[in-house]
């Protein structure tokens, strides 16, 4: 495609999107969705769509047309990232990767479920594990390890406090700590607003 046509398409499609979020969609590579012919193979293949109102095609369409409300829609968290849509898309759109990018933008805007935020902020950031075995509440898991002849803690970050610090330093460096702090403040503000009402 020539550069001019590319520019025109960008202008044409995104003209109606005034927000900065539209630009974020483009920056994240979501413009790949322009290849979509709306065939619905993604929706038809989706194991989550079988039991929820999550419709992959619709979510992607809303993203493409700059409908910001898609970021607040809990449906985007119903994708189990099984990659069936990615494999079957006749236009070779990396559908699952698009959903993940959409989630990144949602989180940046502060749309993250409390359970997910807690997992990132308290568990992953603090311990370096997504599912830890340290701490008082997890004694039974350490005992279980020992019952199978393994040391109570694995030789991961659990045995290396300096490695936890190293991970935290990297997360600060890529801006994850700032993002988590910003969301935490946002969540606290929302909470006190609710309490005031």
């Amino acid at each position: 495609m020539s550069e001019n046509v590319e520019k025109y398409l960008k202008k044409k499609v995104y003209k109606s999107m005034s927000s900065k979020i539209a630009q974020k969609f483009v920056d994240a590579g979501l413009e790949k969705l322009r290849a979509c012919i709306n065939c619905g193979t993604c929706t038809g293949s989706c194991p989550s769509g079988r039991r929820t109102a999550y419709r992959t095609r619709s979510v992607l369409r809303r993203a493409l047309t700059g409908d910001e409300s898609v970021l607040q829609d809990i449906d985007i968290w119903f994708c189990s990232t099984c990659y069936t849509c990615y494999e079957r898309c006749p236009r070779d759109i990396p559908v699952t990767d698009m959903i993940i990018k959409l989630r990144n933008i949602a989180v940046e805007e502060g749309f993250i479920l409390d359970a997910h935020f807690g997992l990132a902020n308290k568990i992953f950031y603090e311990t370096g594990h997504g599912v830890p075995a340290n701490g008082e509440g997890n004694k039974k898991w350490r005992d279980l390890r020992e019952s199978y002849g393994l040391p109570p803690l694995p030789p991961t970050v659990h045995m290396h406090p300096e490695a936890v610090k190293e991970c935290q330093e990297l997360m600060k460096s890529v801006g994850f700590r700032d993002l988590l702090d910003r969301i935490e403040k946002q969540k606290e503000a929302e909470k006190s607003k609710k309490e005031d009402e």
Partner: protein
Amino acid sequence: MRRMSEQNKWKYGFFLGCVTPNRYPMIEASIRAVFDHLGAEILELEGASCCPAPGVFRAFHIPTWLVIAARNITIAEELGVDIITGCNGCYGTLRDAWIELEHDYELKKMINEHLAKVGREFKGSIEPKHVVQVLYQDMGLDYLRGFVKHKFKDLKVAVHYGCHIVKPSDKRPWAGESEDPRFLDEIVEITGAKSIDYKDKFQCCGAGGAVRTAVKEISADFSREKLENMRDAGADIIINCCPFCHLQLDLGQMEANNLFKDMIGEPYKIPVIYLTQLLGLSFGINPNLLGLIKNHDLKGVSPFIPIESFLKKVKTQLT
């Protein structure tokens, strides 16, 4: 039987992840025992962290996912060995991050600028592999067959691949096959067990993509559907190759029995066995080393569905 030259070649860094060591340590024990038995050396990746989980932390912040994955890979690079992982999620993260960094010079440069702050550099000099990939491709079925001591008779197995071991297929080593792979069934069947067909065999277990964390009921409905199809087909046991699928299908039976009790009739009670536990038994490895024998009186720990019916069934065939 063991070929010395290849024995020296097989040296791997064992990436444990989270669920394997911290919730299903029997899986860790069985992978260690089987690899040792097959003449492969396992090195520890000291200080490795969460991979980080592809559907969770990648969905929150891609740069965090990439930089932590790259850090984990550098630990194996320092040892000069390929990574093995027994977890589809860790495999997805490590392999996808590895490929993305290898195919995008700017991205690699950016990630290395962050890693430099902690004295690390991602080189891309080693390959992240799944335990199943090592068994099937590095060692091969013929080599594995040479170790089979006991053949199981009349054992019907529902094989569950999980998603990220085969997909996205352009980043996996299975020649693009994603709709109907056979490699896991072939490994299972060298033990004499029969891999049965069941409806929607390649359907996701429902644990991934942060769905389990977000909405337990939806996630549990995925596994209910799988379990129903497995039971319909007459499965004696479930064999899988991912600790998170393992958790979802094991603990998930308890959850389904509770959440959907009006819908499912009889409660589910299908033993869930990890691939290397089955292989190890067939190789004649002591079941204690494979995490198959309970030596504790702890409450509320894995496995949640008792595996005694399986052990009883194969016991007479192990002599």
